[in-house]
């Protein structure tokens, strides 16, 4: 083994099981700490969204309202407006975050998030078509969004067969452009009022949040998040490529099917409830990865997604007095520079190696 002494660190003592254990525990502790901090931050942002802003409530008053006591004037604004808005922001941000992280690590490319490869646009186009052409409301819009997202996902995977991850992303970007054209066409055909409604929804907005949407989304997440946890082991395998994953005993076709299905639903459901909030799915995965020292973590991605939506929503609601901007306007404005920074810094890392 003398020929192995070529690396500077090879002079170190041989590894023991205890040493490996310590090595393994380090990143885990770090991840637990970051997850806890981020969870606290998300809780704080949730409270800020509910209690502060144009209409402020004290915590005791809020707790009284939660207890079912009505406070004239405040109850309606808090219970029917701010609370569902904040909860919808939390849930949709988390769902977008997990969905983005699933696709990005499964296809091994940060560009492969559902908002870039057309899956979210598929949900939008189909939801807009349902609203504008058929006058669908409520849960029907969710169904339409899910169907649209699944159809686009199916279409791009079929078209990209045998072309690898990059081929799928390019085809997805093409599909996204096509879906956008379809949305524009549908809007031009719609009457002015429903077109305006659709526009607000399309830029991603929590303004029309209500308990029905919060209920649908929380029920969906209650089913989908355990499924995601079940698939996260396979995700770690798939991130190494199909061959290595198979060699490590992962059932690659089954894992891909499950994760794609979960990822599509996690993108489509919040899109139906709050519109395609720009860049959240795309940003959460890479940000969570950086916080976690380079390793993928779905719970962290969920928290980052929730934090992005909640902070962007607070800014959107309170930035311009008297006007409540759609949250997607803020995430879009914040997301674009981040994308550039990500591209530049990752390029630099590549040059370094």
């Amino acid at each position: 083994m003398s020929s192995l002494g070529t690396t500077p660190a090879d002079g170190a003592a041989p590894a023991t099981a205890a040493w490996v254990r310590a090595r393994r525990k380090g990143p885990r502790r770090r991840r637990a700490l970051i997850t806890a901090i981020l969870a606290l931050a998300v809780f704080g942002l949730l409270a800020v969204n509910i209690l502060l802003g144009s209409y402020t409530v004290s915590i005791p008053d809020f707790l009284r309202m939660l207890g079912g006591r009505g406070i004239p004037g405040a109850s309606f604004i808090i219970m029917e407006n701010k609370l569902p808005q904040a909860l919808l922001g939390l849930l949709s941000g988390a769902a977008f975050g997990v969905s983005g992280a699933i696709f990005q690590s499964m296809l091994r490319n940060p560009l492969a998030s559902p908002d870039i490869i057309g899956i979210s646009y598929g949900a939008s186009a189909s939801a807009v078509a349902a609203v504008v052409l058929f006058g669908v409301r409520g849960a029907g819009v969710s169904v339409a969004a899910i169907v649209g997202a699944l159809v686009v996902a199916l279409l791009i995977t079929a078209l990209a067969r045998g072309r690898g991850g990059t081929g799928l992303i390019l085809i997805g970007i093409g599909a996204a452009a096509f879906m956008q054209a379809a949305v524009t066409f549908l809007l031009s055909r719609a009457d002015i009022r429903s077109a305006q409604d659709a526009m607000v929804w399309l830029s991603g907005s929590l303004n029309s949040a209500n308990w029905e949407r919060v209920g649908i989304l929380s029920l969906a997440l209650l089913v989908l998040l355990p499924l995601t946890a079940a698939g996260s082991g396979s995700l770690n395998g798939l991130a190494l490529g199909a061959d290595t994953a198979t060699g490590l005993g992962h059932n690659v076709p089954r894992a891909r099917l499950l994760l794609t299905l979960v990822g599509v639903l996690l993108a489509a459901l919040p899109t139906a409830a709050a519109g395609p909030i720009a860049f959240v799915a795309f940003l959460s995965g890479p940000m969570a990865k950086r916080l976690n020292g380079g390793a993928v973590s779905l719970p962290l991605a969920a928290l980052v997604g929730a934090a992005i939506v909640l902070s962007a929503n607070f800014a959107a609601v309170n930035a311009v007095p008297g006007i409540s901007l759609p949250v997607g306007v803020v995430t879009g404005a914040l997301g674009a520079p981040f994308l550039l920074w990500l591209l530049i810094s990752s390029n630099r890392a590549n040059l370094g190696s």
Partner: protein
Amino acid sequence: MTFQSSKPSATLSARQLSLGYGERAIVADLSLTLPAGKVTVIVGANACGKSTLLRGMARLLPPSAGVVHLNGADIHKLPTRELARELGILPQTPTAPDGITVADLVGRGRSPHQGWFRQWTADDDAAVASALNVTGTAGLAGRSIDELSGGQRQRVWIAMALAQQTQVLLLDEPTTYLDLAHQVEVLDVVSELNARRGITVAIVLHDLNLAARYADYLVAMKAGSIVAQGAPGEVLTAELVREVFGLESVVVPDPVVGTPMVVPMGRRAALLADAAASKLSSQTVTESVRA
């Protein structure tokens, strides 16, 4: 699950195996048994189907006909996780997700041994430690894969495959992109491992001389079929090199260990021989004049 050298070596064999991609058949009706506990090296010209054969034997590619047996059981009928505890494969030029650390990647080799109800245990730690030590990558454990040189990276991938602790290990061109020193280093690691644990190894290699040096059993392929197989000293001849690679060569004993060594002729050899001959003849002329 500590290292069991007492466990009998595993046998992997292909029977009348046909493999291909879509309509394109690459390997047709091929039968091969990897000698148990030995290192088999598969050689052949580009696109002869050697990597395809290895992928087929590792169930990465479903056969269009024939079967692959591991200790008598059809590998396509075994649960994939169970198979992964017995049969390891290092694909050609594997890629890691960026930012992953060496310890994390090598640890993933343990995933077939884990499951819902069997989480990470002390055995897993021991297996990872041993894999890091054998490949000399312990000092790199905390580093990110992207920071490593090609040779270090390849050793880390081999460490991952070793952490899997399988009885059969298949390596698809593990020395690609490595300089000669690193090629020798990687093959030394594999052959030491084979000697120590008696695992059955098959390697696809390009370099005939390294193949002859490290193989107990050499398999030469051409156009999807096996042309010759056996101990390198018996099968590696100038005729075989001509048949498989279309190359004229002289096969001499390797001055270090005596295994066959292929010295290619090439067109430049003729040129150099001519030049030397003319130099020699002019020298003899002047010498004879002087005399």
